[in-house]
């Protein structure tokens, strides 16, 4: 009786252990099932590299969205990565521990602010500033990059601090003993030792930026347009799905699922890169 119970428990646990995996597979299955046939029917090249997105005319090229997603993500990195990494270095190497221990959770707390709130701030505060000072519609690549850059700050800072703190104190002491200043120690020893952790934090931030939807819809302006300047309005892959999903039928809807497929592939590649970077860090330790 008891032994049977033990076996049953093991079996139940094993089944539940596959829940996350089956969730992932189910998602992949349904998205692929809706999107892949379209991609093959319409043509991979035409779908990925044509700039014509006219659903009512049966034209579904997502090149502008791919370009926009990349630009927006890159923009978010330019804004968020230095700010985040510098902040993490300052907090872990130049700030008294007790102060850091208050500031770090505060920053992590900000990761919990709903993305729609960030988007709203973008529309109400940032877009008018851009419109007034630089011209253009305000709702733009620039606005989206800044808002996303801010949104990824907590992720980048938090993980970077963790990996910087994981550098053994003896490394730093060794450097100080040779007469290095704090900054010399930081950039020659600490940053080098925690490089893969910092890179992982940036990649994870990248993942968040490329996957963000609502905030981007609110601030990017959503033109199907390859931007010439940061002041141009753009539409990302995520925005394309969310904007048109509720109105789409037939081919149009399949094309949106196909957009999801592209997004999914990009994310999984990024994720694998991040986990390689993280594993590298673990091995080093």
């Amino acid at each position: 009786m008891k032994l049977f119970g033990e076996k049953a428990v093991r079996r139940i646990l094993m089944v539940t252990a596959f829940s996350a995996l089956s969730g992932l597979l189910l998602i992949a299955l349904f998205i692929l099932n809706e999107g892949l046939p379209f991609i093959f029917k319409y043509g991979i090249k035409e779908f990925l590299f044509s700039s014509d997105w006219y659903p009512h005319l049966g034209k579904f090229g997502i090149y502008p969205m791919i370009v926009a997603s990349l630009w927006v993500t890159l923009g978010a990195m330019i804004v968020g990565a230095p700010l985040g990494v510098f902040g993490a270095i300052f907090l872990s190497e130049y700030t008294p521990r007790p102060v850091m221990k208050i500031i770090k959770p505060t920053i992590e707390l900000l990761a919990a602010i709903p993305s729609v709130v960030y988007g709203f701030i973008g529309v109400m505060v940032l877009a008018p500033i851009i419109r007034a000072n630089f011209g253009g519609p305000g709702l733009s690549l620039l606005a989206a990059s800044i808002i996303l850059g801010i949104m990824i700050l907590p992720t980048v800072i938090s993980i970077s601090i963790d990996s910087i703190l994981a550098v053994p104190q003896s490394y730093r002491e060794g450097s100080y003993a040779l007469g290095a200043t704090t900054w010399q120690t930081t950039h020659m020893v600490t940053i080098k030792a925690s490089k893969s952790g910092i890179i992982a934090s940036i990649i994870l931030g990248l993942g968040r930026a490329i996957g963000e939807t609502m905030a981007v819809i609110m601030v990017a302006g959503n033109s199907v347009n390859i931007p010439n300047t940061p002041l141009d309005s753009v539409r990302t892959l995520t925005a394309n799905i969310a904007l048109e999903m509720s109105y789409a039928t037939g081919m149009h809807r399949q094309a949106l699922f196909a957009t999801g497929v592209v997004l999914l592939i990009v994310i999984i590649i990024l994720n694998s890169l991040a986990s390689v970077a993280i594993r590298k860090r673990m091995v080093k330790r």
Partner: protein
Amino acid sequence: MRIHPRYTQRGAVVILGGATLLTLVILIFIIVFILEKGLPVLGWNFLTSNPEDMGRSGGIFPTLIGTIILPLIAIIIATPLGVFTSVYLSEYTKETRATKIIRFGTDCLAGIPSIIFGLFGYIFFVITLGMGWSLLAGGLTLAVMILPTIIRTSEEAIRAVPKSYREVSFSLGASSWQTVKKVILPNALPGIVTGVMLSIGRSIGETAAVIFTAGSSLRIPTSLLDSARTMSVHFYILAREGISAENAYGTAAALIIAVLLVNLSAYWLMNRFISKRS
């Protein structure tokens, strides 16, 4: 030309400190901006009265209900699944190919954008399973979304339980499940609860996945198969469509306070957990 180390040191401090300050200022500005405009609107009456005219006036009571029930469904489903998964991974198997695949799957799931969850929930729960836009479809979608968080935090909490406790329990003739039930889960509980709280926070703030699966009906839901609107969705609609700036700020303030409260209590729990350990 070589710059003297003293100057690079000073320059570094200025730049790094400036970046930190800028980050903090931006992030605090966002909260202050919303609270300053939203708090005057936010009151007992605002929370407990029904919206009128699509939310142009009146309160946000139905969205409050949606905001409570939707994450509740999600954690009721995801918590046992997530905790059992982490128990299996940490107590019942050694590192094998299967556990590696499970872990990779969990990591991938964690990285999937919420809009994809929305698409999936819409096509699977809403259409294929015929649930319609409903609390159930939204809750299930959120459950899949938060599962990786719960698995990760539970696994960390379980691994933090000293190995010696397991040895003692086994040496006293406990089976694996008895050890899990009597020693491991009770000791990992605060960590697990922290993960659940963080997941609740994420569910409350989620918009993209919810709007496609739970719909946006402003009525008070009377069953799990009713559509409902959460505060995030309500805020999104109010703000986007310019229905009422005043009520949008009020809803945003309520939203931020709810999310901060949930996360603060998670941190509080985690700190208690850590201090008890050491």
